[in-house]
Protein backbone atom coordinates (compact mmCIF):
# COMPACT_ATOMS: atom_id res chain seq x y z
CA UNK A 1 0.00 0.00 0.00
CA UNK A 2 2.87 2.33 0.87
CA UNK A 3 4.37 1.62 -2.54
CA UNK A 4 1.20 2.93 -4.14
CA UNK A 5 0.80 5.88 -1.80
CA UNK A 6 4.12 7.53 -2.61
CA UNK A 7 3.58 7.78 -6.38
CA UNK A 8 0.01 8.92 -5.72
CA UNK A 9 1.23 11.69 -3.41
CA UNK A 10 3.81 12.68 -5.98
CA UNK A 11 1.12 13.00 -8.62
CA UNK A 12 -0.90 15.26 -6.37
CA UNK A 13 2.07 17.33 -5.20
CA UNK A 14 3.73 17.97 -8.55
CA UNK A 15 0.94 20.00 -10.21
CA UNK A 16 0.72 22.23 -7.13
CA UNK A 17 4.46 22.71 -6.93
CA UNK A 18 4.90 23.42 -10.62
CA UNK A 19 2.09 25.95 -10.60
CA UNK A 20 3.83 29.12 -11.61
CA UNK A 21 3.71 32.60 -12.98
CA UNK A 22 6.12 33.17 -15.83
CA UNK A 23 6.79 35.64 -18.57
CA UNK A 24 8.70 34.39 -21.58
CA UNK A 25 9.81 36.39 -24.55
CA UNK A 26 9.16 34.52 -27.79
CA UNK A 27 10.97 37.14 -29.83
CA UNK A 28 14.68 36.54 -30.07
CA UNK A 29 17.23 38.87 -28.59
CA UNK A 30 18.83 41.05 -29.82
CA UNK A 31 16.39 42.56 -32.29
CA UNK A 32 17.61 44.89 -35.01
CA UNK A 33 15.59 47.53 -36.76
CA UNK A 34 16.68 47.63 -40.37
CA UNK A 35 18.68 50.66 -41.48
CA UNK A 36 16.58 53.67 -42.29
CA UNK A 37 17.42 56.50 -44.65
CA UNK A 38 17.42 59.81 -42.83
CA UNK A 39 15.51 62.36 -44.88
CA UNK A 40 14.97 65.39 -42.67
CA UNK A 41 11.52 64.47 -41.37
CA UNK A 42 10.49 62.31 -38.46
CA UNK A 43 10.26 58.64 -39.34
CA UNK A 44 9.23 55.58 -37.39
CA UNK A 45 9.69 51.85 -37.49
CA UNK A 46 7.79 49.25 -35.54
CA UNK A 47 8.76 45.89 -34.16
CA UNK A 48 6.32 43.30 -32.86
CA UNK A 49 7.29 41.55 -29.63
CA UNK A 50 5.68 38.26 -28.70
CA UNK A 51 5.41 37.53 -24.98
CA UNK A 52 3.89 34.45 -23.36
CA UNK A 53 2.46 34.90 -19.88
CA UNK A 54 1.65 31.69 -18.02
CA UNK A 55 -0.25 31.89 -14.77
CA UNK A 56 -1.27 28.52 -13.44
CA UNK A 57 -2.07 27.12 -10.06
CA UNK A 58 -2.87 30.25 -8.06
CA UNK A 59 -6.26 31.87 -7.67
CA UNK A 60 -4.82 35.11 -8.98
CA UNK A 61 -6.40 37.30 -6.34
CA UNK A 62 -4.50 40.41 -7.42
CA UNK A 63 -3.89 39.80 -11.10
CA UNK A 64 -0.56 40.47 -12.78
CA UNK A 65 1.09 43.02 -14.97
CA UNK A 66 3.73 43.23 -17.68
CA UNK A 67 6.14 46.15 -17.51
CA UNK A 68 8.72 47.43 -19.97
CA UNK A 69 11.80 49.55 -19.33
CA UNK A 70 14.27 50.94 -21.84
CA UNK A 71 16.59 53.87 -22.02
CA UNK A 72 16.62 55.91 -25.22
CA UNK A 73 18.81 54.35 -27.95
CA UNK A 74 22.29 55.81 -27.98
CA UNK A 75 25.22 55.89 -30.36
CA UNK A 76 28.19 57.50 -28.66
CA UNK A 77 26.99 60.94 -27.61
CA UNK A 78 23.95 60.82 -29.90
CA UNK A 79 20.53 59.83 -28.62
CA UNK A 80 17.26 59.01 -30.34
CA UNK A 81 13.75 59.54 -28.99
CA UNK A 82 12.55 57.10 -26.34
CA UNK A 83 11.06 53.83 -27.53
CA UNK A 84 7.30 53.61 -27.32
CA UNK A 85 4.87 50.75 -26.93
CA UNK A 86 2.00 51.74 -29.19
CA UNK A 87 -0.21 48.67 -28.94
CA UNK A 88 -0.55 45.45 -26.96
CA UNK A 89 -2.99 42.74 -27.98
CA UNK A 90 -3.76 39.46 -26.28
CA UNK A 91 -4.62 36.22 -28.02
CA UNK A 92 -7.23 33.85 -26.64
CA UNK A 93 -6.01 32.19 -23.45
CA UNK A 94 -5.18 28.51 -23.36
CA UNK A 95 -4.49 25.77 -20.77
CA UNK A 96 -7.41 24.35 -18.84
CA UNK A 97 -10.28 26.54 -17.77
CA UNK A 98 -8.37 29.72 -18.39
CA UNK A 99 -9.68 33.26 -17.97
CA UNK A 100 -8.68 35.93 -20.47
CA UNK A 101 -6.91 38.93 -18.93
CA UNK A 102 -8.85 42.15 -18.44
CA UNK A 103 -6.43 44.93 -19.33
CA UNK A 104 -6.79 48.57 -18.33
CA UNK A 105 -3.42 49.98 -19.35
CA UNK A 106 -3.70 52.68 -22.01
CA UNK A 107 -1.17 53.02 -24.81
CA UNK A 108 0.94 54.61 -26.22
CA UNK A 109 3.46 54.36 -23.40
CA UNK A 110 6.83 56.06 -23.75
CA UNK A 111 9.48 53.85 -22.21
CA UNK A 112 12.07 55.06 -19.74
CA UNK A 113 14.81 53.33 -17.79
CA UNK A 114 12.50 53.35 -14.79
CA UNK A 115 9.84 51.31 -16.53
CA UNK A 116 6.11 51.44 -17.08
CA UNK A 117 3.21 49.04 -17.19
CA UNK A 118 2.24 48.05 -20.70
CA UNK A 119 -0.42 45.43 -19.95
CA UNK A 120 -2.19 43.98 -16.96
CA UNK A 121 -4.65 41.35 -15.89
CA UNK A 122 -7.15 42.65 -13.39
CA UNK A 123 -7.78 40.68 -10.21
CA UNK A 124 -9.37 37.33 -10.92
CA UNK A 125 -8.44 37.37 -14.62
CA UNK A 126 -5.44 36.23 -16.62
CA UNK A 127 -5.23 32.57 -15.67
CA UNK A 128 -3.82 29.94 -17.99
CA UNK A 129 -1.49 30.94 -20.80
CA UNK A 130 -1.84 33.99 -22.99
CA UNK A 131 0.34 35.27 -25.82
CA UNK A 132 0.67 39.05 -25.95
CA UNK A 133 1.88 40.97 -28.98
CA UNK A 134 3.34 44.34 -28.14
CA UNK A 135 4.23 46.84 -30.85
CA UNK A 136 7.49 48.59 -30.12
CA UNK A 137 7.95 51.85 -32.02
CA UNK A 138 11.24 53.51 -32.81
CA UNK A 139 11.15 57.18 -33.79
CA UNK A 140 13.88 58.86 -35.77
CA UNK A 141 13.59 62.60 -35.29
CA UNK A 142 14.08 64.88 -38.24
CA UNK A 143 17.37 65.92 -36.69
CA UNK A 144 18.55 62.37 -35.92
CA UNK A 145 22.17 61.73 -36.81
CA UNK A 146 23.30 58.63 -38.69
CA UNK A 147 24.91 55.84 -36.73
CA UNK A 148 24.35 52.47 -35.16
CA UNK A 149 22.28 52.93 -32.03
CA UNK A 150 21.79 50.45 -29.20
CA UNK A 151 19.30 50.10 -26.37
CA UNK A 152 18.36 47.56 -23.73
CA UNK A 153 14.74 46.63 -23.23
CA UNK A 154 13.57 44.80 -20.12
CA UNK A 155 10.22 43.04 -20.18
CA UNK A 156 9.05 41.90 -16.76
CA UNK A 157 5.99 40.09 -15.53
CA UNK A 158 5.09 40.84 -11.94
CA UNK A 159 2.63 39.95 -9.24
CA UNK A 160 2.69 43.03 -7.06
CA UNK A 161 0.55 45.28 -4.87
Amino acid at each position, binding site marked *: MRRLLIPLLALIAVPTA*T*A*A*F*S*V*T*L*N*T*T*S*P*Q*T*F*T*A*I*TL*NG*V*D*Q*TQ*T*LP*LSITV*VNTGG*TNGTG*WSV*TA*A*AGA*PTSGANTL*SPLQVTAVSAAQCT*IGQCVNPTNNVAVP*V*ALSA*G*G*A*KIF*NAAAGTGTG*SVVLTATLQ*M*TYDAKAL*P*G*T*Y*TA*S*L*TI*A*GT*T*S*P
Partner: protein
Amino acid sequence: MRRFATILLLALVVTPLASAAAKAPAFGLRALGNPKLGYFVYSLSPGAVRRGGVIISNSGTATGTVKLFAADATTGSTTGTVYLTDRKAEHAGAWISLAQSTLTLKPGQHRTVPFTVRVPASAKPGQWVGGVVAETSHQVSQPKSKKKASVRIKIRDLTIVAVQVNVPGPPVLGFTIGGVTTAGQRGFQQIVTHIANTGNVLVKPTGTVTVLNKQGAKLQVLTFKMDTFLPQTAIAYPLLLKKALAPGDYSANVRLAIPGVAGAAARVVTAHPSFSISKQDVKQVFTSAAPQAPPPTAAGSSSSSTPWALIGVAVLAALLLALLVFQLVRRRRTPKAATPSSVPASLPPEPEAAEPEQPVLAEAEAAQEARQAVSEQTRSPECDPHHYWDVAYDRGDLGDDGIWRFPHRCRNCGLELLARDVDDATAHADALPA
Protein backbone atom coordinates in the same frame (compact mmCIF):
# COMPACT_ATOMS: atom_id res chain seq x y z
CA MET B 1 7.97 8.51 -57.14
CA ARG B 2 10.97 7.03 -55.33
CA ARG B 3 12.57 10.48 -55.26
CA PHE B 4 9.41 11.98 -53.83
CA ALA B 5 9.27 9.34 -51.11
CA THR B 6 12.93 9.97 -50.22
CA ILE B 7 12.41 13.71 -49.95
CA LEU B 8 9.27 13.26 -47.87
CA LEU B 9 11.16 10.92 -45.55
CA LEU B 10 14.03 13.39 -45.26
CA ALA B 11 11.63 16.21 -44.50
CA LEU B 12 9.97 14.22 -41.75
CA VAL B 13 13.34 13.37 -40.23
CA VAL B 14 14.79 16.86 -40.49
CA THR B 15 11.74 18.71 -39.16
CA PRO B 16 11.89 17.36 -35.62
CA LEU B 17 15.57 18.29 -35.55
CA ALA B 18 14.71 21.82 -36.62
CA SER B 19 12.09 22.15 -33.94
CA ALA B 20 14.49 20.75 -31.40
CA ALA B 21 16.78 23.69 -32.13
CA ALA B 22 14.08 26.01 -30.83
CA LYS B 23 14.05 24.36 -27.41
CA ALA B 24 14.51 26.71 -24.51
CA PRO B 25 13.82 26.89 -20.79
CA ALA B 26 10.90 28.89 -19.38
CA PHE B 27 11.19 29.79 -15.73
CA GLY B 28 8.20 30.40 -13.53
CA LEU B 29 8.05 31.87 -10.09
CA ARG B 30 5.53 31.38 -7.32
CA ALA B 31 5.31 32.83 -3.82
CA LEU B 32 5.51 29.86 -1.46
CA GLY B 33 2.45 29.74 0.77
CA ASN B 34 0.75 32.70 -0.94
CA PRO B 35 -1.23 31.18 -3.79
CA LYS B 36 -4.09 33.65 -3.48
CA LEU B 37 -2.23 36.94 -3.34
CA GLY B 38 0.65 35.83 -5.52
CA TYR B 39 3.20 37.86 -3.58
CA PHE B 40 4.41 38.30 0.01
CA VAL B 41 3.13 40.75 2.61
CA TYR B 42 5.00 40.80 5.92
CA SER B 43 4.38 43.00 8.96
CA LEU B 44 7.79 43.44 10.50
CA SER B 45 9.16 45.85 13.09
CA PRO B 46 12.55 47.48 12.64
CA GLY B 47 15.28 44.93 13.31
CA ALA B 48 12.96 41.95 12.68
CA VAL B 49 13.86 38.97 10.49
CA ARG B 50 11.46 36.80 8.48
CA ARG B 51 12.11 33.79 6.25
CA GLY B 52 10.19 32.87 3.12
CA GLY B 53 10.65 31.00 -0.11
CA VAL B 54 9.92 31.13 -3.81
CA ILE B 55 9.24 28.12 -6.01
CA ILE B 56 11.20 28.26 -9.25
CA SER B 57 10.03 25.93 -11.99
CA ASN B 58 11.16 25.24 -15.52
CA SER B 59 8.12 24.67 -17.71
CA GLY B 60 10.22 24.99 -20.87
CA THR B 61 11.64 22.35 -23.17
CA ALA B 62 15.34 22.62 -22.33
CA THR B 63 17.59 22.74 -19.30
CA GLY B 64 18.51 26.27 -18.36
CA THR B 65 19.99 28.48 -15.69
CA VAL B 66 18.02 31.17 -13.95
CA LYS B 67 19.60 34.14 -12.24
CA LEU B 68 17.98 35.17 -8.95
CA PHE B 69 18.31 38.52 -7.25
CA ALA B 70 16.38 41.13 -5.27
CA ALA B 71 15.39 44.55 -6.57
CA ASP B 72 13.82 47.76 -5.31
CA ALA B 73 10.33 48.65 -6.42
CA THR B 74 9.25 52.08 -7.56
CA THR B 75 6.29 53.72 -9.29
CA GLY B 76 6.12 53.34 -13.07
CA SER B 77 5.65 56.43 -15.22
CA THR B 78 1.98 55.55 -15.74
CA THR B 79 1.72 54.37 -12.09
CA GLY B 80 1.79 50.77 -10.93
CA THR B 81 4.66 48.88 -9.36
CA VAL B 82 7.81 48.48 -11.43
CA TYR B 83 11.25 47.25 -10.40
CA LEU B 84 14.69 48.75 -10.77
CA THR B 85 16.41 45.63 -12.03
CA ASP B 86 19.43 47.24 -13.66
CA ARG B 87 20.92 48.61 -10.45
CA LYS B 88 21.88 47.33 -7.01
CA ALA B 89 19.01 47.34 -4.53
CA GLU B 90 19.31 50.11 -1.93
CA HIS B 91 15.92 50.23 -0.25
CA ALA B 92 13.43 47.42 0.51
CA GLY B 93 15.10 45.23 -2.11
CA ALA B 94 18.31 45.39 -0.08
CA TRP B 95 16.49 43.87 2.91
CA ILE B 96 16.00 40.61 0.96
CA SER B 97 18.77 37.96 0.80
CA LEU B 98 18.31 34.92 -1.39
CA ALA B 99 19.92 31.60 -0.50
CA GLN B 100 20.98 31.08 -4.13
CA SER B 101 21.85 33.50 -6.90
CA THR B 102 21.66 30.98 -9.75
CA LEU B 103 19.81 27.74 -10.28
CA THR B 104 19.92 25.22 -13.11
CA LEU B 105 16.76 23.25 -13.76
CA LYS B 106 15.79 20.54 -16.23
CA PRO B 107 12.46 20.76 -18.06
CA GLY B 108 9.62 20.03 -15.65
CA GLN B 109 11.87 20.41 -12.61
CA HIS B 110 11.16 22.82 -9.75
CA ARG B 111 12.99 23.90 -6.63
CA THR B 112 12.22 26.03 -3.60
CA VAL B 113 14.72 28.80 -2.94
CA PRO B 114 14.58 30.27 0.57
CA PHE B 115 15.08 33.96 1.28
CA THR B 116 15.41 36.11 4.37
CA VAL B 117 14.00 39.58 4.96
CA ARG B 118 15.98 41.64 7.48
CA VAL B 119 14.41 44.97 8.31
CA PRO B 120 17.09 47.43 9.39
CA ALA B 121 16.77 48.95 12.83
CA SER B 122 16.60 52.38 11.20
CA ALA B 123 13.60 51.49 8.98
CA LYS B 124 10.80 54.04 9.11
CA PRO B 125 7.12 53.10 9.46
CA GLY B 126 5.33 52.50 6.17
CA GLN B 127 4.70 50.08 3.34
CA TRP B 128 7.90 49.31 1.48
CA VAL B 129 8.21 47.04 -1.54
CA GLY B 130 11.05 45.01 -2.99
CA GLY B 131 10.95 42.02 -5.29
CA VAL B 132 12.48 38.62 -5.98
CA VAL B 133 13.56 38.54 -9.62
CA ALA B 134 14.10 35.49 -11.85
CA GLU B 135 16.00 36.19 -15.05
CA THR B 136 16.78 33.62 -17.70
CA SER B 137 20.54 33.71 -18.02
CA HIS B 138 20.80 32.56 -21.61
CA GLN B 139 20.10 34.85 -24.51
CA VAL B 140 19.03 33.44 -27.83
CA SER B 141 20.79 35.29 -30.59
CA GLN B 142 19.21 36.06 -33.88
CA PRO B 143 21.08 34.76 -36.91
CA LYS B 144 23.52 37.44 -38.03
CA SER B 145 22.05 39.68 -40.67
CA LYS B 146 24.05 41.27 -43.43
CA LYS B 147 21.79 44.28 -43.19
CA LYS B 148 23.30 47.38 -41.74
CA ALA B 149 21.80 47.96 -38.35
CA SER B 150 20.62 51.33 -37.23
CA VAL B 151 19.06 50.38 -33.89
CA ARG B 152 19.85 47.20 -32.02
CA ILE B 153 17.69 46.27 -29.05
CA LYS B 154 18.87 43.76 -26.47
CA ILE B 155 15.90 42.28 -24.67
CA ARG B 156 15.74 40.70 -21.19
CA ASP B 157 12.71 38.91 -19.80
CA LEU B 158 12.12 38.74 -16.08
CA THR B 159 9.53 37.34 -13.73
CA ILE B 160 9.14 39.11 -10.41
CA VAL B 161 7.29 38.39 -7.18
CA ALA B 162 6.80 41.31 -4.80
CA VAL B 163 7.84 41.31 -1.15
CA GLN B 164 5.87 44.01 0.66
CA VAL B 165 7.07 44.85 4.17
CA ASN B 166 4.71 46.80 6.43
CA VAL B 167 6.71 48.48 9.17
CA PRO B 168 4.28 49.41 11.99
CA GLY B 169 3.61 53.07 12.68
CA PRO B 170 1.16 55.83 11.87
CA PRO B 171 0.18 55.92 8.17
CA VAL B 172 0.88 59.20 6.44
CA LEU B 173 -0.99 60.30 3.32
CA GLY B 174 1.02 62.96 1.56
CA PHE B 175 1.15 64.05 -2.06
CA THR B 176 2.66 67.04 -3.80
CA ILE B 177 1.81 68.27 -7.27
CA GLY B 178 4.58 69.98 -9.20
CA GLY B 179 4.68 71.61 -12.59
CA VAL B 180 2.84 70.73 -15.76
CA THR B 181 4.43 70.35 -19.17
CA THR B 182 3.35 68.95 -22.51
CA ALA B 183 4.89 66.18 -24.53
CA GLY B 184 3.99 63.73 -27.23
CA GLN B 185 4.84 62.53 -30.67
CA ARG B 186 3.16 61.60 -33.90
CA GLY B 187 -0.10 63.41 -33.31
CA PHE B 188 -0.52 62.36 -29.68
CA GLN B 189 -0.20 65.42 -27.48
CA GLN B 190 0.07 64.75 -23.78
CA ILE B 191 -0.10 66.85 -20.66
CA VAL B 192 2.45 65.71 -18.10
CA THR B 193 1.95 66.42 -14.39
CA HIS B 194 4.74 65.96 -11.87
CA ILE B 195 3.38 64.16 -8.81
CA ALA B 196 5.15 62.81 -5.71
CA ASN B 197 3.93 60.52 -2.95
CA THR B 198 5.57 62.02 0.12
CA GLY B 199 3.67 59.75 2.51
CA ASN B 200 4.48 56.25 3.67
CA VAL B 201 1.66 54.10 2.29
CA LEU B 202 0.66 52.53 -1.01
CA VAL B 203 -2.31 54.34 -2.53
CA LYS B 204 -4.31 54.43 -5.76
CA PRO B 205 -5.39 58.05 -6.22
CA THR B 206 -7.94 59.33 -8.70
CA GLY B 207 -8.16 62.82 -10.07
CA THR B 208 -8.76 65.36 -12.78
CA VAL B 209 -6.68 67.79 -14.79
CA THR B 210 -8.68 70.74 -16.10
CA VAL B 211 -6.94 72.70 -18.82
CA LEU B 212 -7.69 76.44 -18.89
CA ASN B 213 -6.70 79.04 -21.44
CA LYS B 214 -4.98 82.32 -20.59
CA GLN B 215 -8.32 83.93 -19.81
CA GLY B 216 -9.26 81.11 -17.42
CA ALA B 217 -11.88 79.52 -19.69
CA LYS B 218 -12.17 75.76 -19.36
CA LEU B 219 -10.86 73.97 -22.46
CA GLN B 220 -11.01 70.33 -21.44
CA VAL B 221 -11.24 68.09 -18.40
CA LEU B 222 -9.18 64.92 -18.17
CA THR B 223 -10.09 62.37 -15.53
CA PHE B 224 -7.75 59.62 -14.43
CA LYS B 225 -7.61 56.64 -12.12
CA MET B 226 -4.10 55.78 -11.03
CA ASP B 227 -2.67 52.37 -10.29
CA THR B 228 -0.51 51.81 -7.21
CA PHE B 229 1.60 54.83 -6.24
CA LEU B 230 4.47 53.74 -4.00
CA PRO B 231 5.52 55.91 -1.04
CA GLN B 232 8.52 58.19 -1.39
CA THR B 233 8.45 58.04 -5.19
CA ALA B 234 7.75 60.68 -7.83
CA ILE B 235 6.65 60.46 -11.44
CA ALA B 236 5.88 62.61 -14.47
CA TYR B 237 2.34 61.39 -15.14
CA PRO B 238 1.25 61.64 -18.79
CA LEU B 239 -2.36 62.09 -19.86
CA LEU B 240 -3.47 62.10 -23.47
CA LEU B 241 -5.19 65.35 -24.42
CA LYS B 242 -8.64 64.96 -25.96
CA LYS B 243 -7.91 67.82 -28.34
CA ALA B 244 -4.51 69.19 -29.18
CA LEU B 245 -3.48 72.55 -27.77
CA ALA B 246 -2.07 75.30 -29.98
CA PRO B 247 1.02 77.30 -29.01
CA GLY B 248 0.22 79.67 -26.15
CA ASP B 249 -0.07 80.10 -22.41
CA TYR B 250 -2.31 77.89 -20.31
CA SER B 251 -2.92 76.77 -16.77
CA ALA B 252 -4.19 73.53 -15.25
CA ASN B 253 -6.34 72.76 -12.25
CA VAL B 254 -4.98 69.50 -10.92
CA ARG B 255 -7.10 67.68 -8.33
CA LEU B 256 -5.85 64.50 -6.70
CA ALA B 257 -8.20 62.46 -4.50
CA ILE B 258 -6.34 60.11 -2.17
CA PRO B 259 -8.44 57.36 -0.62
CA GLY B 260 -8.20 56.83 3.10
CA VAL B 261 -6.27 53.96 4.60
CA ALA B 262 -6.56 52.50 8.09
CA GLY B 263 -5.79 55.29 10.51
CA ALA B 264 -5.57 58.04 7.90
CA ALA B 265 -8.54 59.88 6.44
CA ALA B 266 -8.98 60.42 2.72
CA ARG B 267 -7.79 63.75 1.45
CA VAL B 268 -7.71 65.90 -1.63
CA VAL B 269 -4.64 67.71 -2.94
CA THR B 270 -4.96 70.47 -5.54
CA ALA B 271 -2.62 72.70 -7.52
CA HIS B 272 -2.94 75.33 -10.25
CA PRO B 273 0.29 75.33 -12.25
CA SER B 274 0.74 77.37 -15.43
CA PHE B 275 2.39 76.10 -18.57
CA SER B 276 3.22 77.23 -22.07
CA ILE B 277 3.29 75.48 -25.38
CA SER B 278 5.80 76.67 -27.94
CA LYS B 279 5.67 76.36 -31.69
CA GLN B 280 8.51 73.90 -31.37
CA ASP B 281 6.44 71.72 -29.01
CA VAL B 282 3.60 71.63 -31.51
CA LYS B 283 5.98 70.97 -34.36
CA GLN B 284 7.44 68.02 -32.47
CA VAL B 285 4.01 66.46 -32.03
CA PHE B 286 2.55 67.10 -35.44
CA THR B 287 5.30 66.98 -38.04
CA SER B 288 6.00 63.27 -37.98
CA ALA B 289 5.96 61.24 -41.13
CA ALA B 290 4.02 58.10 -41.82
CA PRO B 291 5.28 54.92 -40.15
CA GLN B 292 7.69 52.73 -42.06
CA ALA B 293 6.88 49.13 -42.78
CA PRO B 294 7.67 46.95 -39.80
CA PRO B 295 10.72 44.71 -40.06
CA PRO B 296 10.03 41.01 -40.38
CA THR B 297 8.84 39.34 -37.22
CA ALA B 298 11.42 37.15 -35.55
CA ALA B 299 10.59 33.53 -35.32
CA GLY B 300 9.72 32.36 -31.87
CA SER B 301 12.89 30.60 -31.04
CA SER B 302 12.49 31.07 -27.36
CA SER B 303 10.47 28.77 -25.22
CA SER B 304 6.88 28.01 -25.68
CA SER B 305 4.96 26.46 -22.86
CA THR B 306 3.23 24.18 -25.40
CA PRO B 307 5.76 22.25 -27.45
CA TRP B 308 2.85 20.50 -29.20
CA ALA B 309 2.18 23.72 -31.02
CA LEU B 310 5.75 23.71 -32.33
CA ILE B 311 5.49 20.09 -33.33
CA GLY B 312 2.22 20.82 -35.09
CA VAL B 313 3.79 23.68 -37.01
CA ALA B 314 6.78 21.52 -37.88
CA VAL B 315 4.57 18.70 -39.21
CA LEU B 316 2.53 21.19 -41.20
CA ALA B 317 5.73 22.68 -42.62
CA ALA B 318 6.93 19.19 -43.53
CA LEU B 319 3.70 18.42 -45.34
CA LEU B 320 3.82 21.70 -47.21
CA LEU B 321 7.43 21.02 -48.17
CA ALA B 322 6.49 17.57 -49.36
CA LEU B 323 3.61 18.98 -51.39
CA LEU B 324 5.94 21.53 -52.95
CA VAL B 325 8.49 18.89 -53.84
CA PHE B 326 5.75 16.70 -55.27
CA GLN B 327 4.56 19.56 -57.44
CA LEU B 328 8.12 20.17 -58.66
CA VAL B 329 8.62 16.50 -59.49
CA ARG B 330 5.33 16.46 -61.38
CA ARG B 331 6.26 19.59 -63.30
CA ARG B 332 9.61 18.08 -64.34
CA ARG B 333 7.85 15.07 -65.76
CA THR B 334 5.48 17.09 -67.93
CA PRO B 335 6.48 17.63 -71.60
CA LYS B 336 8.96 20.48 -72.19
CA ALA B 337 6.59 22.22 -74.59
CA ALA B 338 4.23 22.84 -71.71
CA THR B 339 6.85 24.69 -69.65
CA PRO B 340 6.96 28.45 -69.84
CA SER B 341 9.76 30.01 -71.86
CA SER B 342 12.95 29.56 -69.94
CA VAL B 343 15.04 32.40 -68.61
CA PRO B 344 18.34 32.86 -70.47
CA ALA B 345 21.24 31.53 -68.45
CA SER B 346 23.25 34.66 -69.18
CA LEU B 347 20.98 36.89 -67.15
CA PRO B 348 22.70 38.27 -64.07
CA PRO B 349 21.43 37.00 -60.75
CA GLU B 350 18.83 39.09 -59.02
CA PRO B 351 20.27 41.40 -56.41
CA GLU B 352 19.78 40.36 -52.79
CA ALA B 353 16.76 41.97 -51.26
CA ALA B 354 17.54 45.28 -49.56
CA GLU B 355 21.05 44.73 -48.33
CA PRO B 356 22.30 48.24 -47.73
CA GLU B 357 26.08 48.05 -47.76
CA GLN B 358 26.63 51.79 -47.93
CA PRO B 359 26.72 54.03 -44.89
CA VAL B 360 23.41 55.54 -43.93
CA LEU B 361 24.30 58.96 -45.30
CA ALA B 362 25.23 57.45 -48.64
CA GLU B 363 21.90 55.67 -48.62
CA ALA B 364 20.20 58.95 -48.00
CA GLU B 365 21.89 60.44 -51.04
CA ALA B 366 21.05 57.44 -53.19
CA ALA B 367 17.46 57.49 -52.07
CA GLN B 368 17.28 61.21 -52.73
CA GLU B 369 18.56 60.64 -56.27
CA ALA B 370 16.07 57.85 -56.79
CA ARG B 371 13.23 60.03 -55.57
CA GLN B 372 14.40 62.82 -57.86
CA ALA B 373 14.42 60.47 -60.80
CA VAL B 374 10.88 59.38 -60.01
CA SER B 375 9.66 62.87 -59.38
CA GLU B 376 11.10 64.13 -62.66
CA GLN B 377 8.81 61.72 -64.43
CA THR B 378 5.70 62.19 -62.35
CA ARG B 379 5.62 65.64 -60.84
CA SER B 380 4.24 68.69 -62.56
CA PRO B 381 6.94 70.92 -64.09
CA GLU B 382 5.91 73.77 -61.79
CA CYS B 383 7.16 71.78 -58.85
CA ASP B 384 10.23 70.37 -60.44
CA PRO B 385 11.81 68.48 -58.77
CA HIS B 386 10.10 68.60 -55.35
CA HIS B 387 7.72 70.48 -53.19
CA TYR B 388 9.68 72.34 -50.56
CA TRP B 389 7.14 73.10 -47.89
CA ASP B 390 7.19 76.14 -45.66
CA VAL B 391 4.88 75.50 -42.75
CA ALA B 392 3.13 78.16 -40.64
CA TYR B 393 2.83 76.37 -37.34
CA ASP B 394 1.46 79.50 -35.68
CA ARG B 395 -1.59 79.47 -37.95
CA GLY B 396 -2.81 75.95 -37.22
CA ASP B 397 -6.43 75.03 -37.62
CA LEU B 398 -7.97 72.52 -35.24
CA GLY B 399 -10.41 70.35 -37.18
CA ASP B 400 -13.59 68.77 -35.87
CA ASP B 401 -11.68 65.49 -35.83
CA GLY B 402 -9.33 66.92 -33.18
CA ILE B 403 -6.42 67.05 -35.65
CA TRP B 404 -4.38 70.18 -36.21
CA ARG B 405 -3.68 71.20 -39.79
CA PHE B 406 -1.21 73.87 -40.74
CA PRO B 407 -0.81 76.04 -43.84
CA HIS B 408 1.84 74.55 -46.14
CA ARG B 409 3.28 76.58 -49.01
CA CYS B 410 5.62 75.16 -51.62
CA ARG B 411 8.67 77.31 -52.26
CA ASN B 412 8.96 75.96 -55.81
CA CYS B 413 5.45 76.23 -57.18
CA GLY B 414 3.68 78.39 -54.62
CA LEU B 415 1.02 75.74 -54.00
CA GLU B 416 -0.77 76.35 -50.70
CA LEU B 417 -2.83 73.89 -48.74
CA LEU B 418 -3.73 72.79 -45.21
CA ALA B 419 -2.11 69.58 -44.03
CA ARG B 420 -1.11 67.74 -40.90
CA ASP B 421 2.54 67.53 -41.89
CA VAL B 422 4.80 67.63 -44.92
CA ASP B 423 3.95 64.08 -45.95
CA ASP B 424 0.26 64.83 -45.73
CA ALA B 425 0.86 68.00 -47.77
CA THR B 426 2.78 66.07 -50.43
CA ALA B 427 0.03 63.46 -50.57
CA HIS B 428 -2.61 66.16 -51.06
CA ALA B 429 -0.49 67.88 -53.68
CA ASP B 430 0.01 64.62 -55.57
CA ALA B 431 -3.72 64.00 -55.51
CA LEU B 432 -4.47 67.34 -57.13
CA PRO B 433 -5.28 67.27 -60.86
CA ALA B 434 -2.34 68.28 -63.06
